[in-house]
Each structure stands twice: as structure tokens, then as C-alpha cells.
């Protein structure tokens, strides 16, 4: 069996076994969306204008929980080290975990979209486009997020360190995702969606390749 | 200093503004000299701790 597929199978199996954690993270994201609307107040027009931004902030905050969980199971009983000693190719392990995290974050994002539509009256006719942006944005979070989750899982102040390292890094992906989402919801008179989508794609390509390269150094002892 | 400084519209000459220049240079001096001092002090302390017989 190809190592990447073996790793992906392992990660999907793990995520399926611990799916209650994903539900908890989703509830966290949904409650964040609710809290954001309290910050703005019941002003429908304003809520609708910031809907894209709130969706991605909620997903960003929830993603750190999901990413941290994804590596807690790898570090317990040195499970990841056990695989490395078989041997298992570190790069395959990274991409298996990153793709599994991408799927999880996409599920999370897709789950938060209806909540956003309801709370902020922010519906869009171009739903496939929105889901496409959710996938690209989730990919932008999962590539560096998986790497930093692997790093911070081995450190004592992991809950603060993961967001501290991840948030400044993903600014371009966040900007791209928020702008693209807002254009889809509020309309795109000047046709900027393509530009922001290409920015997201560029960010994903760079970090999906770079993080794969350096992952081995992060988990060696 | 909380009232808005007198400022003409975008293209006009900004009158006054010296207090901002002073503030900028003061901040720069404090941070640059402060950092320089802290590096030199920490370096000296480590050197003395290292040269002193352990």
C-alpha cells in the first residue's frame, strides 16, 4: 500500500473514531459566529457586510482546536514515533495528516456556512463558488497548521503557541478567503474574485510544498 | 494632546507637527539605546559569569 494512502487511511480512521471532538469544535465555531453578531448588534445590513469576515474568523479560531487535537493522538504513547520506526516515510505521514485536516476543516467550514446564512442573512447564489473558497481557505490553514501542530504538540505551552505562530502566517490566506467570501455574498461588481482566488491558490501551493519539505526535521529527535 | 492638531486638507501644509517629530525621535532613541544597553549589559554579565571560576 502506498505510504501516503496508508497514512491517510490511518488519519481518517482516527478522525472517525474521535468524531465527537469535531462536533465539539463545530459548536465552538457556531457559538463564535453568534458572539460576533452581538459585537455588531441586530443591524442586518452591517451583519451581512461582515459575514465573510466572521465566518473565517470563527473557522480560524476553531481550526487551532481541531489541529491541536489532531496531533494530541499522535504524541500519546509516542504513536507517531512508532510509525517512523517501522519505517514510515515522514513526508507521507505529513501529507496524510494534512489532507485529513483539510477534509476536517472543510467539513467545519461547510457546516458553519448555513449558520452564517441564518445569523447574518448572508446567502449567496454562487454556493459552489463559496464551497470552493472554503476548500482553498481550509487548505491554507491545514498545511502550515499541521506542521505547527506537530511542533507545538511537543511543547508545554502548546495551546498559546499554536495560534501565536499560525495567525500571523496565514494573514494572506485569511485576507484572500474573507475578500472572496464577501465578494460572493455582497456581489462582485469589479470582478475581483479571480484575483483573490489566485492569491489563495498561490499561498496553498507554496505552503503545501514547503511544509512537506521541512516536516521531517520537526519530528526527528 | 488629545485634541486634533490643526490640519488643513490633504494637500495643504501641515502646520506645527514638531511635537510628533520629537515624539518619533524620542521613541526611536529610547528603543534603540535601550536595546543597545540591554544587549551590552547582558553580554557583560554573561562574560563575567563565564570567566569567574564555576
Amino acid at each position: 500500500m502506498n505510504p501516503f494512502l496508508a497514512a491517510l487511511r490511518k488519519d481518517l480512521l482516527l478522525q472517525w473514531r474521535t468524531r465527537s471532538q469535531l462536533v465539539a469544535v463545530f459548536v465552538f465555531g457556531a457559538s463564535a459566529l453568534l458572539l460576533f453578531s452581538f459585537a455588531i448588534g441586530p443591524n442586518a445590513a452591517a451583519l451581512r457586510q461582515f459575514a465573510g469576515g466572521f465566518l473565517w474568523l470563527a473557522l480560524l479560531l476553531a481550526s487551532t482546536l481541531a489541529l491541536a487535537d489532531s496531533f494530541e493522538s499522535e504524541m500519546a504513547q509516542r504513536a507517531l514515533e512508532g510509525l517512523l520506526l517501522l519505517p514510515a516515510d515522514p513526508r507521507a505521514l505529513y501529507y496524510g495528516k494534512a489532507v485529513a485536516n483539510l477534509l476536517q476543516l472543510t467539513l467545519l467550514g461547510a457546516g458553519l456556512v448555513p449558520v452564517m446564512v441564518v445569523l447574518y442573512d448572508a446567502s449567496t447564489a454562487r454556493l459552489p463558488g463559496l464551497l470552493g473558497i472554503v476548500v482553498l481557505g481550509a487548505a491554507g490553514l491545514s498545511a502550515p497548521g499541521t506542521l505547527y501542530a506537530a511542533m507545538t504538540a511537543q511543547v508545554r505551552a502548546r495551546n498559546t503557541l499554536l495560534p501565536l505562530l499560525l495567525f500571523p502566517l496565514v494573514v494572506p490566506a485569511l485576507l484572500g478567503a474573507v475578500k472572496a467570501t464577501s465578494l460572493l455574498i455582497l456581489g462582485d461588481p469589479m470582478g475581483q474574485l479571480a484575483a483573490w482566488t489566485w492569491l489563495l491558490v498561490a499561498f496553498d501551493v507554496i505552503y503545501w510544498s514547503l511544509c512537506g519539505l521541512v516536516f521531517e526535521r520537526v519530528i526527528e529527535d | 494632546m488629545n485634541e486634533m492638531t490643526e490640519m488643513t486638507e490633504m494637500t495643504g501644509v501641515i502646520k506645527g507637527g514638531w511635537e510628533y517629530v520629537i515624539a518619533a525621535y524620542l521613541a526611536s532613541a529610547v528603543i534603540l539605546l535601550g536595546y543597545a544597553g540591554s544587549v551590552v549589559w547582558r553580554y557583560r554579565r554573561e562574560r563575567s559569569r563565564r570567566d569567574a571560576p564555576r
Partner: protein
Amino acid sequence: MGKSVWPFGLTGLGLALLAWGTTWGLGFAPREAYMGDVQRIMYVHVPTAWNAMLVLTFAFLCALVSLLRGGWVWDARLEAAIEAGVVLSGLVCIQGSIWARPTWGVWWDWDPRLTTTAVLLFGFGGILALRQFVDDPVKRAVWSAVAVVIAYVDVPLVYFSVRWWNSLHQVQSSPETVSRAFHWPLRINAFGVLFLVAGLLELRARLAFMRRETELAPPPPSETAVAAATR
């Protein structure tokens, strides 16, 4: 790492140049046509910005060498460069904010360069925090080098995304619309900050190297015998 005192000399020279450039810029340089005296902040803001980017680029190089070739010297220089990079980036943001107040009436004007510096400040500040929390020196060296490489590669992406994101808000105001007559104080201060920081980088790197020596036990007595025996 050397013991010689050239870093102190360099730092001193840097401070002297800064004093000279500042007095020139504040005292003798002509008042700028539109922005009046506020424009004099440029003589310290622009040199700091240039050098902040230079130091972070140096940190990137140290990270690459530390990852590819290893050696505690490069990890020490990396630590120094990250710290200096954070200090300078922080200073650039403060200066930019003070400059924006009289010019735009707000404390932060989302200028793409300034906003990128702010993102770098938090990014590299996070890496400094990472170095505090990792106890094993080897892991600390490798992880912070990896984090620096990843954060540095992000700079162009951050800059472009912020510029596009900000392009609707206001016309692109470039603080560097500096005509020839203003160049000298700017250039003098630029070298002033450069020498000052270069000297401090060396001292801070030596400090980090010494700490590493006390942190790691010396090689075992038979190190020499081992070297001969390893094929």
C-alpha cells in the same frame, strides 16, 4: 565566537552616525513643501524600516545555514537576528504610527509596507516565544529555523495581499517621496542604524553562544579517540 571588541566600535560608530544624521535632518535639512516639519520623521523611520527588513533577511539566511549545515554559531546568530528583527519592526510600527497621526489623523493608516511590518512583528515575536518554550537546545534550533524560513517566505504574499486589500481605501501614499535634497541625512542614518545593529547582532550572538555552552555539557573526554575511530 571571537573575543575582539570590534562590535563595540561598530555600535559606537553607528550611534555617532545617527547623531550626525539626526542633527542634520532635524536642524539643517529644508522643510518639505507639503508635509512641513512632520516629514523629518522620515530621517529615522525609513532607515529603521530598511534595516528591519535587512535584519530579518539575515535571520532567514542564518536559518537556512543552521538547517542545512548546522553549527551552534548559526543558531546563536539566528537568535540574535530574530530578537533584533522584532525590536526594529516594533520601532518601525511606532514611528509609522506617530507619522500617520498628523498626516492622516489616525494612529494607523494601513499602509501596505507598515502593515506588512506589523505582521512580521507578530510573526517573529511568536518565534521568539517559541524559543522560550522549547527546552531542548537542538529542537529549539531546528524548530525556530524552520519557523523563520516559513515566516520569511510569507513576506511577499503578505505585502501583496495587504496592498490589494488596502488599495480601495486611499491613494497609495509613499512615505519615501523624498527629493534629492533630503537624501543625505537619510543615507547617513541608514548606515548609522546598520552599524549599530550589526555590532549588537555580534554581541547578542556571542551571548547566545555562551549560554549554549553552559546549557550543553562539554564533549566526553574520549572525544578525540572517537574522532579517530569513526570511519
